[in-house]
């Protein structure tokens, strides 16, 4: 599959109808957030002293960053394990990660009760190094910076290819400089998620008796790390499928099949670790108690095992099963994360919780904004590869060529093999 494909900016206007919808959703979230800063978190949410993180932390931070882990897992494959063929997936994955992590960070600011004290986090002498959350916070902030730096080559490439000679020279010069530093940046991009994704899982160890024993284990950091890899690979497959449909982006079946096989093994590894741990800790008897928790547990297992089956079975290697599997992987890993932080967490008898409309509006609005930014950046900068033959036929060049060759086409003959237009 050698190819001369290069990432390029997606054609099309920025402010189309979907974009307006996405921004409208974000607008609602913004309104809720503004009100929250005036009247307190309790005024827009159902969070209480028992369910103090509501859905903002478990979903906006823990799930969003899990989805963003695609940059980490694809990066591991591509750079550390030297599978260069994954290279085309890197830029979209990094963009997805940069957005997801930035939104996670922004959500923390919204969720913090006293965010004006946040500047103190820049003062290491004040750090309580025992705090797992401190480590997550510092590490995530650093990683967000790393991710946006990882995207800079797209900006320089764009400049380098520009018609203006000054801009092009600027892009080439800085692009070259950055290229030299890049391995060290990428190495950071491999290290930081290893640290904070495992620490994210580690956050709930201290909750001890408040977390259901089927979820509470000292293995939480390792489970969170493995699940973020799965989730990230799944998210990248889903993203690729969506981009193929909407933008006719490059879509290498064989590559995605290989990646999904890796993911299948990761999913099995997760299940093996989890079940092994439960058995090792003598908690197997809990699996004989037919209650709500067992139901959730079985649902989670199914959402890990079924995609693994899809990924690893030769016969269901077609694209559709793979995308379904990837989607289920993301759902399954998200579910496990939400369960460990919220569903199967119980601070005591006196509390109950269901997210308020305001909380949901913020979560949905943040996600919508993320999608909007992804579209906008992909349309301005060369991030997505639309280089395989089918896409080229479908893309601009095809239009040009068909214009040029129109006289040769017998009048009245439409071209039935012409793929859908790229928008």
């Amino acid at each position, binding site marked *: 599959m050698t190819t001369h494909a290069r990432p390029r900016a997606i054609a099309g206007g920025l402010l189309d109808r979907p974009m307006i919808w996405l921004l409208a959703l974000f607008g609602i979230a913004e309104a809720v957030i503004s009100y929250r800063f005036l009247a*307190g978190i309790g005024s827009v949410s159902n969070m209480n002293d028992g369910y103090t993180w509501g859905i903002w932390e478990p979903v906006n931070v823990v799930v969003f960053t899990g989805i963003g882990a695609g940059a980490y897992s694809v990066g591991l494959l591509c750079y550390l394990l030297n599978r*260069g063929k994954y290279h085309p997936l890197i830029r979209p994955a990094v963009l997805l990660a940069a957005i997801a992590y930035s939104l996670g960070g922004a959500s923390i600011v919204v969720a913090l009760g006293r965010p004006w*004290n946040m500047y103190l986090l820049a003062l290491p002498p004040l750090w309580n190094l*025992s705090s797992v*959350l401190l480590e997550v916070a510092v590490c995530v902030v650093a990683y967000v910076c790393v991710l946006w730096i990882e995207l800079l080559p797209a900006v320089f490439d764009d400049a380098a290819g520009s018609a203006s000679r000054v801009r092009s020279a600027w892009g080439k010069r800085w692009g070259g400089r950055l290229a030299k530093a890049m391995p060290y940046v990428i190495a950071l991009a*491999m*290290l930081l998620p290893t640290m904070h994704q495992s620490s994210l899982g580690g956050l709930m160890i201290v909750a001890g008796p408040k977390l259901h024993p089927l979820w509470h284990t000292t293995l939480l950091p390792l489970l969170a790390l493995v699940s973020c890899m799965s989730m990230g690979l799944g998210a990248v497959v889903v993203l690729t499928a969506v981009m193929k449909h909407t933008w006719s982006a490059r879509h290498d079946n064989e590559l995605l099949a290989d990646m999904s096989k890796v993911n299948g093994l990761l999913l099995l590894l997760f299940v093996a670790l989890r079940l092994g741990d439960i058995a090792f800790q003598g908690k197997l008897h809990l699996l004989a108690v037919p209650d709500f928790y067992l139901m959730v547990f079985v649902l989670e297992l199914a959402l890990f095992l079924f995609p693994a089956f899809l990924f690893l079975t030769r016969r269901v290697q077609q694209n559709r099963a793979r995308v379904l599997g990837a989607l289920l992987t993301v759902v399954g890993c998200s579910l496990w994360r939400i369960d460990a932080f919220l569903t199967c967490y119980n601070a005591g008898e006196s509390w109950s919780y269901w997210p308020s409309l305001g909380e949901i509006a913020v979560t949905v609005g943040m996600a919508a904004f993320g999608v909007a930014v992804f579209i906008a950046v992909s349309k301005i900068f060369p991030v997505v590869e639309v280089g395989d033959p089918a896409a080229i036929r479908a893309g601009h060049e095809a239009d040009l060529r068909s214009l040029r060759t129109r006289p040769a086409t017998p009048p009245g003959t439409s071209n039935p093999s012409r793929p859908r237009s790229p928008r």
Partner: protein
Amino acid sequence: MLVSRRLLLQGAAVAGASTVLPGKAQARGKVEPLEEAVGMLYDSTHCVGCGGCVAACKEANGLPWDEPTDLSNTTRSIVKTRRLAVPLRNGEASAFVKRQCMHCVDPSCVSVCMLGALHKEGQGKRDMGGERKGTGIVLYDEDLCLGCRYCQIACAFAIPRFEWREAFPHIVKCELCRKRADPTREGALGVANPACCQVCPAGALVYGRRVDLLAEARRRMAAEPARYNGKIFGEKDGGGTQALYLAAAGVTFKELGFPDLPDGSYANASESASHAPYLNGVAPIALYAVAAYLVRRNKKAQEGAERPEEPRK
């Protein structure tokens, strides 16, 4: 391509390098109670449920009287009536229990607090003024609090409360009335002076040094062995607490609303599991070095092979 064994091995090595190590690294160790630690002893068998301590606490902390039924952002102390599964011999079908911060020996809330807003007196990142080391009182410093509410997740006793309806909210919890201390006095009253203990008319609530309170609890149990259930809650539970509890024979602390805690603290368990893999910072640095080397090598090779036409230097 089938996933090769090498790929798997490499993957396992890279992914696991920093997290599989916890087995090798040691735990941070148990925290022992401070010698001069102060706390309170609550004897449920003597409590008459008058709620005087609750009112005194409100007054001492300048909080409004709002007929509290549980701890809240305006209530740092509460007396609850707990229904018992089996009535006691004297026919009592319920028991009282006073709840407030336990001033844990190795508190989860302190372990998790990012900048040490919650900290043991004199052992934090910053002196709030007149802090004395050694009392073990868990204090709250609003100027270092980000309002992350991790303390609420962490506290096994579900003690810290948050001001949900405030634009500038605080964490609210008992600070053992440190501010009511009389510095001219010797001993425990020189470091704190809980209003709740001061007003108790029934001898159910006593303030003092933890060692003295433990001795008092043992004395009471020895004098009337049939009266008590034989356990001092807080002596070891969850790594130990500075608020200690006695309960009537036939009553379990679980019935009184306490969690079932192992003798070790969750702060220790969590910190060890989360930090041990770092091997005091060696692991991340080593990992980074290996990653940088591999990335540099692989990236160069990939760019050379895949994009010969690319004008990259």
